[in-house]
């Protein structure tokens, strides 16, 4: 019997590997098309950056040859190329690490993004962590105490208002009133002027303080969704037979909340992390520019402001890559979280 068991395990491992590989390939294809599609649309649209840049260089007096060369350097494509050729050139350059040169700053795009991206990742991840913690705990409590009607109705009103305020609007309101008007929070910058960047405690402290209000903005936008989702899940779990059975056996409420309700409600919530992160990343465009924080959001916002096409496309590629990667990661790791998904593959 055991020999058959090991054989079955080997087969299962191989088919699991196939599924993993399949999923990765699928993601890569989706990523490829996402970028190609946008690139193509931009090139084909009346506002094609290559043509516009070319015309503006010509207007500045450059010869046709020089203008073409400059467009090539900045964006990496030429105006008269067929679109598919441009896309291929773009990808080839991308894999060589070349995303063009920023028209505004004349620095390679990859260098700019490399400097700014870590800040955005820190900001988004830090806010997401707080939003999840607050949302999940609140959701659990709302489910367990759902009979206290006052609590529930006030929270519902608060949530429906928060759902109706877009992140950028909240950023504007809080910034004007709390940062500029009443000066409770620092109005701009990731750290004050005098502090030296580095791994010192004072630097980290300064950064965290400067990010407090921006994090509050993102957390306020994100946590209601988490709380409501968690509450719905927890309420349905509370009615499950295994919870009643646990109560019959005398298991304490504390343990029921953690090992029974939370553990069983978390599973679908895990799949929500990547999409929420995507939304937060997109929101940073407005928030980072409002709070003058370094990051890919403010980079993109500035690029848009001065029509720096190469930087815009570069930022876009990076954000899309992050989103696709996040989704892929969720799918691949889901098996570790949910024993049912892992084992039912085997069974």
């Amino acid at each position, binding site marked *: 019997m055991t020999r058959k068991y090991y054989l079955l395990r080997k087969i299962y491992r191989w088919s699991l590997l196939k599924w993993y590989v399949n999923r990765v390939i699928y993601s890569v294809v989706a990523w490829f098309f996402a970028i190609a599609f946008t690139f193509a649309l931009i090139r084909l649209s009346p506002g094609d950056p290559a043509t516009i840049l070319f015309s503006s260089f010509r207007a500045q007096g450059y010869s046709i040859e020089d203008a073409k060369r400059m467009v090539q350097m900045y964006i990496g494509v030429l105006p008269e190329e067929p679109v598919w050729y441009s896309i291929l050139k773009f990808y080839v350059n991308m894999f060589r690490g070349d995303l063009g040169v920023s028209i505004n700053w004349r620095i390679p795009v990859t260098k700019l993004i490399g400097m700014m991206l870590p800040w955005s990742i820190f900001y988004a991840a830090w806010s997401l962590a707080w939003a999840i913690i607050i949302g999940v705990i609140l959701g659990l409590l709302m489910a367990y105490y759902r009979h206290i009607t006052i609590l529930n109705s006030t929270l519902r009103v608060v949530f429906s208002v928060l759902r109706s305020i877009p992140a950028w609007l909240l950023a504007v309101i809080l910034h004007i009133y709390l940062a500029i008007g009443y000066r409770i929070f620092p109005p701009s910058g990731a750290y004050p002027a005098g502090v030296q960047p580095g791994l010192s405690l004072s630097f980290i402290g300064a950064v965290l303080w400067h990010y407090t209000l921006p994090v509050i903005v993102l957390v306020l936008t994100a946590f209601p969704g988490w709380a409501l989702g968690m509450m719905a899940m927890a309420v349905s779990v509370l009615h499950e037979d295994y919870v009643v059975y646990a109560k019959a056996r005398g*298991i304490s409420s504390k343990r029921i909340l953690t*090992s*029974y309700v939370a553990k069983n409600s978390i599973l679908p919530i895990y799949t929500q992390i990547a999409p929420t992160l995507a939304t937060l990343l997109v929101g940073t465009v407005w928030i980072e520019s409002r709070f003058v924080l370094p990051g890919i959001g403010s980079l993109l916002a500035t690029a848009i402001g001065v029509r720096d096409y190469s930087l815009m496309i570069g930022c876009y590629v990076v954000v899309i890559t992050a989103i696709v990667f996040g989704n892929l990661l969720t799918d691949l790791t889901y098996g570790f979280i949910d024993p*049912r998904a892992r084992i039912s593959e085997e069974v």
Partner: protein
Amino acid sequence: MTNNVLLDIKKLRVDFLGVPTVRDVDFKIFKKETLGIIGESGSGKTTIARAIMRILSEDGTISPDSSAIYYGLGDREVDMFKLSLTEYSRLIRWKETSMVFQSALSSLNPTLRVKDHFVETAKAHGLSNPSKIMERTWELLEAVKLDPDRVLRMFTVELSGGMKQRIVIALSLLLNPKIVILDEPTTALDVLTQRAILDLLKKLHETFKLTYVLITHDIALIADLANRVIVIYAGKIIEEGSVEDIFYNPLHPYTKLLLEAVPKLGEFDRLPKPIPGVSIDYMNLPSGCSFHPRCPYASNICMVKEPSLINIEKNRRVACHIYTGLWKK
């Protein structure tokens, strides 16, 4: 008589959101017997079990007139309904009475292993020595004929129906209770597994000197396992007696119809006879005797006055006007 009584339930009444369901139920549970409670879906049998275990949902309330005197704690008698939930958990829950749920298949936490279920139950009742807990768990799993080595590490999704049922039975015995309530222990299983579980239950009854309360709608199960039977309809006891009395000499029309509805081996010429009528709506109970719309013997008195439970002989009761002298054809 009081020497033998383990649990004495009097005037049990359960309301759900104000609507009475279980009404005026009283019966005794004797030591080492197997009491069968039989009734159709919605008759209130699970409610009685949950009331005894004090796990009614928030919508259910036990009336303050009800009492459940438990004699199993040495020389003390305790009314289980009057204890606070914490007191109940400390004294009675799982230590004196435990329960095997109707849906053993969904009684286990899908994200915990089998081992965790045993450990957490033990810890919830103050046992903290890990080796002692493991010892006990092994003992129980072997008693229910499972291989502890294999089973302890498994998650619910890996277990078959029969295995889950055995685990839930093992869990019920963890603290050596005196009364084990079995709510439909074999309903969701295939026939072969049913047989195996039945045999197991009989063996455990002997080995651990248990008292069973068997709740089911399956008459064959009652015939096999129980020695005394209570028949429930619309939240009230309508007949009580030994298993032979009920089967060979049913008194209440409902019991008679119930027995006739089950086809017997060798009877090929007769079609099964279902009981006519609709099931119980507690918000719109019929006047008088709740069974009268479906009863072939119903007479005028049945529509007006509700029959009370009367003693025919020792431990033989019935609630039907045929036996009160008020019944006319």
